[in-house]
């Protein structure tokens, strides 16, 4: 199979304007992935599926990943005047990376028996701009898996034929796979609670005692 760099260069020629980026992977698996912007994601997926050389007709695994806001450290060189002498100093600056949700697609080819090619789509943030284009029209197999991401991560897939919760019940609020999810304080307690659970249980029982 072609390398990811070759696929990327062919894609940029075929689909003008698509913003593509290769996400590195330093683990021994060396499965790198292709980050695609949401506007062109559907077109890129279609191209990958229909390209006669790649023929990625099989979308195996679709999954969400939640990346919280994180502080990245970058080093910046600065020239400072100390006692009338110019000196070059290195300074680490904290840069805030905003959080986002990710959908990862593992693509294989049943016809050519190769793969995987990994696609990544990212939302702009984790709150209001959480929309991504659905790839279910390209691969029917994404249907339930995208519903699962919608259910557990709260990514809204535009163009999905039947976007509902799938594992949690319909009236459920919030998205339990998110990293900052806090479980509701209404589970049944251990018969002999201690430490933090005891505190919780006491609070809970006090609330229950109120009419």
């Amino acid at each position: 199979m072609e390398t990811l760099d070759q696929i990327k260069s062919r894609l940029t020629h075929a689909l003008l304007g698509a913003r593509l980026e290769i996400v590195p992977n330093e683990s021994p698996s060396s499965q790198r992935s292709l980050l695609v912007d949401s506007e062109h994601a559907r077109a890129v997926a279609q191209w990958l599926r229909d390209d006669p050389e790649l023929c990625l007709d099989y979308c195996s695994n679709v999954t969400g990943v939640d990346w919280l806001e994180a502080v990245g450290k970058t080093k910046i060189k600065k020239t400072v005047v100390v006692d009338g002498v110019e000196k070059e100093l290195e300074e680490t600056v904290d840069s805030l990376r905003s959080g986002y949700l990710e959908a990862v697609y593992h693509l294989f080819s049943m016809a050519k028996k190769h793969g995987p090619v990994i696609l990544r789509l990212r939302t702009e943030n984790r709150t209001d701009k959480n929309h991504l284009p659905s790839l279910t029209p390209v691969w029917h197999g994404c249907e339930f898996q995208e519903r699962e991401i919608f259910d557990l991560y709260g990514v809204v897939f535009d163009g999905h034929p039947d976007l509902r919760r799938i594992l949690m019940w319909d009236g459920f609020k919030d998205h339990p796979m998110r990293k900052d999810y806090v479980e509701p304080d209404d589970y049944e307690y251990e018969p002999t609670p201690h430490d933090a659970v005891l505190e919780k249980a006491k609070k809970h029982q006090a609330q229950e005692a109120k009419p």
Partner: protein
Amino acid sequence: MSHSTTLTPTLEQRGFAAAPNYELLPKRGSSGDGELLEVSMGPHHPSTHGVFRMDVVLDGERVVKLKPVFGYLHRNHEKIAENTTYLASMPYTDRLDYFCSLTNNWAYALAVEKLVGLQVPERAEYIRVITAELTRLQNHACLIGFLLQDMGASGTPLMYAFREREKILDLFESLTGARMMCNYMRFGGCRCDLPPGWLAQTQQVVNETPRFLDEFERLLCENEILMARTQRVGALSRELAINTGITGPMLRAAGVNYDLRKVDHYGIYDRFEFKVPLGDHGDTYDRYMIRVLEMRESVKILRQALAAIPDGPIIDPKAKLRGFRPKAGEAYGRIEAPKGELGFYLISDGSPNPYRYRVRPPSFINLTVLEDLCLGHLIGDAVIILGSVDIVLGEVDR
């Protein structure tokens, strides 16, 4: 029915071809007055193989719409795994598809080995192949038993299958200490070596299996009721199967030659000679027959593996049990589990817990096509089609 699902668009609206054979079937079973009946089948219906529900809309007896509803066993397996260490999730993978705990173990171990770069010793690879093929044998035998049970052959085929499964579970018990929740594989190998005499015992079970298969096939394969209930029922086309990401025996019954043991050659599967049975029509009978034939192939693999298993270590000496912290990165590992492609996707951020742990459950994804298979068939056939998909709710709901 108080369930608040919305009506779903038809297949044509979703951009797919109509269900195969819909027009070919005689228009039996329709009430003719166009009145529809909505039935909620399950979650405690005996034919649903666990707590699984189908919201079916019927025109007379004919299925017009079918929506699978599940999640009753959902415990957020993935979140639990993200909150524990890598090794601590190993026993929990047993509970996914509780019929095939050893293949679940293998898939998870394979993904972690890809993430860390561990080499599995030869002997451990052979043990993995032997246990995985035994798992496949008992899974397929039981599936056929349950399928026949759904058709009304109450007891006999299922008991025949369970009698055979019992022998294999005894082998698992003497090897791993548990009959179903084996928790046997480790990253880079296996937990313990074979007990003395285990290979001879296994050889004996494997030698007896063809006799069981002959008997099973004589009993079932040309049974008139089985043929009448399954042939031309729930046919799946090649194109739809590939596009929907169907894997395992269901895909091969539709005639697509895609078996990960041949495609990926994971483990040491390139050393064994075996065939990949393929179906012609993709109907329920083909799905049944594929499993019968795959059991024969598994016996072939088992014979070769038992003859060639070498001595040696059973775990990579570099594998660490304590302080296991993979470097940041990600990996996707997959194997051919009895129900289809079982994959694990792991993202590590360098901490002892996986940042992201994802199971690609084959029977969950194979259910995507259930509605397409059942449309136009009778409600009684929907039960059999579901049985031939081979689902285990521990894996579907996770």
